[in-house]
């Protein structure tokens, strides 16, 4: 993934000011910085949820600036998995269908999608909660469902926006372990967080943001 001189303006506000960043396959990168420094905006650019005012974003060699809305949707569907602070699950669907949905959008048959979704829920330790609706799940369980959904289409890049921000410490630990495990089996990770412990546990590189710019970058020794 590569960001080249990305600038993003909202009216007179400059959210990103010439950010350049590169993440290699298999890397786990944490982005930290104070509130409003542009971390989430940068994540949205990478996910194709928003477009830069200047500069370019490419993922897996694909220049997102060349894609129209449908192209971006297909890009997100096939290349990106996203995990949000507040889970963003569909309240109307039980856990299993929330996960299967991502594959079904690509045209995979329901039975196949459910099979893979069940495997993922099983791997994440919540297969027993597959028929529960989000409102009946704990915060940690919801985030695991969200992770399973993000992994459903085997994305090249997993983006996590404050994935432990809404969780208690135990659930947060579980999610950190999960992300670490994923990276260790080769999943590329980009994590935006306020939590230094999360960054230390899961990331191999730390990028520091301030006022819409990259102000520091260093390798991390993963905490045990």
């Amino acid at each position, binding site marked *: 993934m590569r960001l080249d001189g990305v600038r993003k303006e909202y009216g007179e506000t400059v959210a990103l000011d010439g950010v350049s960043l590169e993440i290699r396959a298999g890397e786990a990168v944490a982005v930290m910085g104070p509130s409003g420094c542009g971390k*989430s*905006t940068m994540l*949205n650019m990478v*996910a194709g*949820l*928003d477009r830069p005012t200047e500069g370019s974003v490419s993922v897996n060699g694909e220049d997102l600036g060349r894609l129209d*809305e*449908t192209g971006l*949707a*297909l890009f*997100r*569907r*096939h290349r990106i998995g*996203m995990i*949000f602070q507040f889970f*963003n*699950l*569909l*309240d*109307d*669907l*039980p856990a299993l*269908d929330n996960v*299967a*949905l*991502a594959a*079904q*959008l*690509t*045209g995979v*048959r*329901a*039975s196949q999608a459910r099979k893979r979704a069940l495997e993922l829920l099983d791997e994440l330790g919540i297969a027993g909660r597959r028929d*529960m*609706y*989000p*409102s*009946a799940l704990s915060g940690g369980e919801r985030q695991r469902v969200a992770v399973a*959904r*993000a992994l459903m*289409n085997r994305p090249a890049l997993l983006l996590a926006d404050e994935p432990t921000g809404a969780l208690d410490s135990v659930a947060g630990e579980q999610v950190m372990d999960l992300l670490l495990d994923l990276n260790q089996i080769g999943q590329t990770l980009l994590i935006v967080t306020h939590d230094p412990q999360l960054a230390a546990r899961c990331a191999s590189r730390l990028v520091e943001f301030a006022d819409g710019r990259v102000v520091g970058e260093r390798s991390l020794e993963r905490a045990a």
Partner: protein
Amino acid sequence: MKAVWRAARAAVRRRRLQTVVIGLVLTFTTATIVLALALLESSVAPFDRAFEAQRGAHAVVAFDPAVVSAAELAATAELPGVKAVAGPFGQTVVATPPGNELRVPGFGGGRATLVGRPAPDGSVDEPDLWSGRWATAPGEVVLNVLPPYGNGRAPEGDPRPIVVPGGPTLTIVGYASSLSATADGWVSPEQMDALAPTATQMLYRFDDSASQADVDAGMAAVAGALPGGAVLAEQSYLTVKDAVVSGTGQYMPFLVAFGLLGLAVAILIVANVISGAVVSGFRHIGVLKAIGFTPRQVVAVYLVMVSVPAVAGAVVGTVIGHFGSQPLLTTAFRGVGLGEVVINPWVDVVAVVGMPLLVLLAALLPALRAHRLPAAQAISAGSAPRPGRGRRAQLWLSGTRLPRSVSLGLGLPLVRPARTSLTMAAVVLGVMTVTFASGLVASVTEYAKVADRSEAVQVYAHPVDPEAAERMDSESVRATMAGLPGAANVVAEVFIPVSALGYAQGVDIEFIQGETAGMGYTEQLVGGRWIEAPGEVVFSSKLLRQLGKDVGEHVTLTLNGGRKDVLIVGRMMGGVLDNAYADWDLLAELAPGHEVRPDWITYQVQLDEGTDVEGYLAAVRAAEPGLRPEANAGLGQYTVTVISLSTTLTLVLGTVAALGVFNTVVLNARERRRDLGMLKSIGMTPRQVVAMMVTSMAALGVVGGIAGVLLGILVHRQVVPIMGEASQIELPPVLLDVWRPLSLTLLSTAGVAIAVFGAYIPARSAARLPIAEVLHNE
């Protein structure tokens, strides 16, 4: 209160689209309600209203100027029981020119009554001068004519002067209509003097006038105060009223039904839209409570929030309704001589006060529910559906081979039954309204076609010149007309009042000469069969009720001392022609030698398909110059007015219903912003978002469309016969069977169309939602 006002103002700003939709719905519904109330008010005793507005004459009396002087007549104003008088006016009867092409009542039939009157105002009979000006100089005339539909004719100085044989040429300078029918035309007093008046007209209003006996008593007092033989002729307003009411009264129940429908639909849609707006705000209500608003303040915020657009919409709607309805209703009622409609202030007051009150009531019920809910519960009630709803159906849908966006869309309505019910109610109401209203219009149209026999008879002809008519023999005239190119069949009809034994009132029988098959008579039958022999008659159901007879029974008719026992073989709907049919030969059997003046006869012609009607009319004029042929316009002027009014109401109600659906869909889309953002974040394309949203509404549209059509037909089938009953018209089944497979299909798809149209715009904007913003904000 400041906090409440601020929160409400912020809520209005945040929900701009919803505010606009509520404002629009209120504007349309209030305008509809003004129209409906004004229609209802105008339809109650329309004759009495218009008669009072014109200060109509309870008695129009012609006196012999040789017997009574103008001063003596003027003195009758002081008699006890006489409330007001107008006159004395000079009056004369003039012959209208033969072949006069001016097709106006009273000036085409050979003679007309002219009255010399200085002005159209006065304490009695103020004619509605609807075009041009009053006749103030010699050589000018104002004709007593009903305004044409749309008021698109007859300016001052009509280029077709009236040439009075042996008298002056009169230029038409204006058109007025007098509900009291005091003259066929008015000239200046100077012109009347030149015409040599043969009678003196006086117009009276009495203190007591409710019954014919009251009017007779008033007239007796007047006649008693004058020399014997002074009264030449008199006409009671009740006679005129009967004629007008029998012509227009049959349509009043249709108009009343539309008025009531407009009221009901407007109220239901407003209730639906407003309660939907409040239900969708439950989460916001919870948040307000959580930050310290008391339950009462929360309810106040919501009431203020919906009241702002509601009051604005009600005010704008009342203004539009008032100024839009007045000309519409005036056109409708003026067209039958019922004068200008003035919308009473109470209608505006009810609309402008009542609609916001209705909105408050509709908002109060769900707001009170929110009032009772704890904050946390209100938040969850507004954001998340109860788990498990529609689970089975959703499971089944997700397992089908339908594209996931479509199956998700189909499942959405099952998740929120309350919201689905509101949307469904809006669709059902909309489709039901359009179905019922279009059915009503079709029934009115069908009624007019059956009553006028416009599908069977294309040309009418009347002898216009009494002298020429004297030479006309009905058989030979029919033969002449039938011999012209394009004629398929010609019948002659004459209207003769006869008596029936045991029945005090007369029976008006239309005697028919010629082949009646295919001439539209049988379509008017509601029971029995058509006439096959001279001794058989067909009576209207109203007449049969009055006679206490039924099909298969005999009745004895008498005329000029002749008597004949006839068999009632059929029952017809009645209405405009509230009379009876019989064979021409029966007249000879009933009263041999009874005079049938040739100028009483009407000839009716059925043309071959594709015949040029104008060409045929010209051929008739050439072949028989004493006849005035005219095309059967099909729908009478008033029918056209009623249909136009009904169509306008249908369109307005349909628009209101569509707005109701639109509002519900907007709320749905708004409520699902976060879900839509999430779905887009995992790769749902804009097209899939639109497909999902539109599918969810289309599913409701299909079910609502079918339910709405069925309900509309049911209501139509219940209401139309009640309306017929109110008009004392027994309706033939053809008036109820107005639905055709194509129209039913179109109406059913109207539900889908309303829902899809309502869904498409919010769905498109949902598809364009900035995901990052939505997911961040929600």
